[in-house]
C-alpha cells in the first residue's frame, strides 16, 4: 500500500473514532436505559419500529464501526502476524463490508 493510502487509513481511523466516541456514549446510555426499562420483544419493537431518527443514527454508527473495525483488524494482523500485502488489505476490506451489510440489515430490520 502506498504511503498516501496508509495516510488515508490513519485519517479514516481517527475520523471514525471521533464519530464513535459520541455514538458509543449514546449507545451505552441507551443500553442502560433499555435494560432498566426491561427487555422484551414488544417493548423493544415499540421503541424502535418506525423511528427514523434512530435509524439514521444507527446507519451512521454502523458505517463508522465497520470502517473502524476493518482498519483496526488490519493493524492488529500486521502487528502480530507476518501477513502483508494486498491480501491482508483485501481481507480487512471484506471484514468491513461484511460488518456494514450485517449491521445495516439489523438496523433496517429493527427501526424501519
Amino acid at each position, binding site marked *: 500500500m502506498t504511503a498516501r493510502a496508509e495516510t488515508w487509513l490513519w485519517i479514516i481511523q*481517527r475520523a471514525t*473514532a*471521533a464519530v*464513535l*466516541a459520541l455514538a*458509543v*456514549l449514546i*449507545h*451505552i446510555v441507551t*443500553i*442502560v436505559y433499555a*435494560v*432498566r426499562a426491561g*427487555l*422484551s*420483544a*414488544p417493548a*423493544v*419493537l415499540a421503541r*424502535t419500529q418506525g423511528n427514523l431518527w434512530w435509524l439514521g443514527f444507527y446507519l451512521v454508527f454502523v458505517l463508522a*464501526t465497520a470502517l473502524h*473495525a476493518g482498519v*483496526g*483488524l488490519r493493524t*492488529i494482523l500486521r*502487528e502480530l502476524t507476518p501477513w502483508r500485502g494486498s491480501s491482508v488489505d483485501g481481507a480487512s476490506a471484506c*471484514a468491513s463490508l*461484511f*460488518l456494514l451489510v*450485517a*449491521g445495516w*440489515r*439489523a*438496523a433496517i*430490520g*429493527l427501526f424501519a
Partner: protein
Amino acid sequence: MSWRARNHPSYWAFVLHRVSGLLLAVFLPFHFWALSTAITGAARLDAFLDWTRQPLVTLAETGLVILLAAHLTGGLRLLALEFLAWPNWQKSAVGLSAGISLAVGLLFLLNAL
C-alpha cells in the same frame, strides 16, 4: 522488548485497547445476528431475550459493556495524546479510563439484575 518497557500503565493500556477492539469486532457479527432475529418476528426475538436472562449470559454482557467502555475511554485517551499538547498526566489518563470503564460495567450490571 524488555519487561521493564512492558511493565508500564501505557503498555497495558495499549494491550487492553488491542484486545478489547479485537473481541468487540468478533462479537459484532453475533450482535447483528441477534438483532436481526427481530426481522423474522417478535417471538424469535423474545426467545433470544429469554436466553440472555441466564446469570452467566448477564455476566458475559457486563464484560462486553466493560470492554466497550474500555475501548471508548482508551480511544479518547489516544486521541488526546495524538491531538493535544504532549501531556504529563499519562498515568492519570490510564487510571481514569480504567475507572470509568469499570463504573459503566457496574451501572449496567446493577440495572440488568
